[in-house]
């Protein structure tokens, strides 16, 4: 029998790099706030925009806060935003995709048209339009980014449901009189898990890009709460005084998105038995 998934994943070089970066960020997001004492609202006007030094390895920001500490706190928010948004996308998209692919007919038509309409809006434009309607803030950003990720999940789950519908054991279950709802829950959704996990991993990267983009434009999490995109937006204002400030939040976003994409690629290869 094939070796376990995690071992196949660890043999994949880019997946190993991605997982390592993600582990570091996750550790920072979970443990960081427990060990560092930090009050985001506290300002220290004598220490604003200091260059990197021993006391402040990445310098200080426009509120006089230590940039490294702010970024560690930001990890929790930015990654958390991504996770919640993707959960919305999976929660709405996966059942819709499963029903659409398994039942077919007019349900499929309807769901496909819906996905097509949502896909006609570039993610960032859809998210901007929704936030323009709902208003800025943490909750609305999660909703906006979550909604823009729905069509991707519909597509992926529908594709596996279409294949599964024709399989012998699903037909057998149907012949035995198992209800459609139960077949969807017990057979269709679990078997769509592999492509769903790959899509969710890659979508995490997109969600972080879009959520941080909203933060960058001042439509997301509001200052002084440190979120990477919001920090980058603030740094934009100070770019002529301290170009340094814009470097690190953006680098964090890039690394996180890159790590999710690399892990997603690795997962795709590891979960696809045909690639051996």
């Amino acid at each position, binding site marked *: 029998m094939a070796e376990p998934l995690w071992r196949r994943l660890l043999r994949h070089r880019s997946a190993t790099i991605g997982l390592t970066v993600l582990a570091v960020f996750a550790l920072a997001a979970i443990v960081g706030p427990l060990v560092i004492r930090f009050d985001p609202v506290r300002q220290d006007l004598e220490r604003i925009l200091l260059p990197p030094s021993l006391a402040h390895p990445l310098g200080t920001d426009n509120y006089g806060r230590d940039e490294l500490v702010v970024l560690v706190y930001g990890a929790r928010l930015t990654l958390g935003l991504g996770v919640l948004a993707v959960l919305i996308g999976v929660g709405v998209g996966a059942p819709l995709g499963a029903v659409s692919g398994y039942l077919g007919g007019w349900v499929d038509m309807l769901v496909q*048209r*819906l996905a*097509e*309409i*949502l896909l*006609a*809006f*570039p*993610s*960032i*434009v859809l998210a*901007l*339009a*929704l*936030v*323009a*309607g*709902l*208003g800025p803030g943490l909750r609305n950003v999660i909703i906006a980014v979550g909604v823009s990720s729905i069509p991707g999940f519909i597509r992926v789950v529908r594709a596996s449901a279409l294949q599964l519908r024709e399989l012998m054991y699903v037909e057998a279950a149907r012949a035995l009189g198992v209800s459609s709802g139960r077949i969807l829950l017990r057979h269709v959704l679990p078997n769509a898990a592999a492509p769903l996990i790959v899509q969710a991993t890659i979508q995490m*990267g997109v969600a972080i*890009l879009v959520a*941080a*983009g909203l933060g*960058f*434009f001042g*439509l997301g999490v509001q200052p002084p709460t440190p979120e990477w*995109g919001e920090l*980058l937006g603030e*740094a*934009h204002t100070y*770019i*002529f005084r301290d*170009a340094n400030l*814009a*470097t690190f*939040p*953006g*680098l964090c*976003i*890039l690394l996180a*998105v*890159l790590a999710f*994409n*690399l892990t997603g690629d690795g997962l795709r290869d590891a979960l696809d038995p045909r690639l051996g």
Partner: protein
Amino acid sequence: MLTYVGRRLLAAIPTLWGVATAVFIMARLLPGDPARVIAGVTASQDQVDHLRRQLGLDQPLPVQYLDFLGGLVRLDLGTSAHFGDPVLAEIGSRLPYTAELALAALALAVVLGISGGVVAALRRNTVIDVVISTVSMLGISMPTYWLGLMLIVLFAIQFRLLPAAGADSPESVVLPAVTLGLLSVGLIARMTRSSLLEVLGQDYVRTARAKGVSPARVVVAHGLRNALVPILTAIGLQLGSLMGGAVVTESVFGWPGVGRLLLDSIFSRDYPMVQGLVLLFAVTYIAVNLLVDLLYVVVDPRVRYG
């Protein structure tokens, strides 16, 4: 061919209608009274009532919806709450800037992407191969807004070579176009490489080589010409992210196109304008994809359009 084009255009109509309906719903998600929000806190009740009547917001929702659809058919997107001009006129005056930026970025991405992909295919498994997959991975993962800021820091602040913002001089387009274009280079290059490699392994390419066609002509006329369909698909797929990227890039560089207008309108709570612009983005996306589909037939006569 003409009937095919006609059928594809007809098939796009339900999607367009759905998109318009989605935009209508989104513009009405706003909690509270839109007329009050547009008029501002300082406006009197009379002014708010006047604005409500003027915008048709005193009508029941189904009437507003039909008015909205009727306006669309007559290409009337309403009046901007901020500028006081028709939405369409304002969009029209900003569109050339976005077109200039998008075309410059696309040209950059296509030229660099295709030539990079060709070199990678001819020099398989060398350093350039690694460079291209790295660039394409970075392109997908790069926050556009950050790339823009870093280019500003490097070329406008450190070296003082190019303007940081605005559209005042001809060279102003360079930094925004590079920002936007770099995101797609890697993906186009990757697609060119794999598609070209596949074609170059075909028998007719070997035949061409055997009968003494020059190597350059084999690659361009026999190879690239036949590898175009997947490359076109890659370019078409990039257009959505290119449009989203234009919103971001224009705002970072203060480029006066429709993307920046969208963000400005969100901030000035100019809802008719936001509605019109979001619609414009979606319709453009649908139209461009349709165009790419039609181009397949031109590029590859084997693609049937029956």
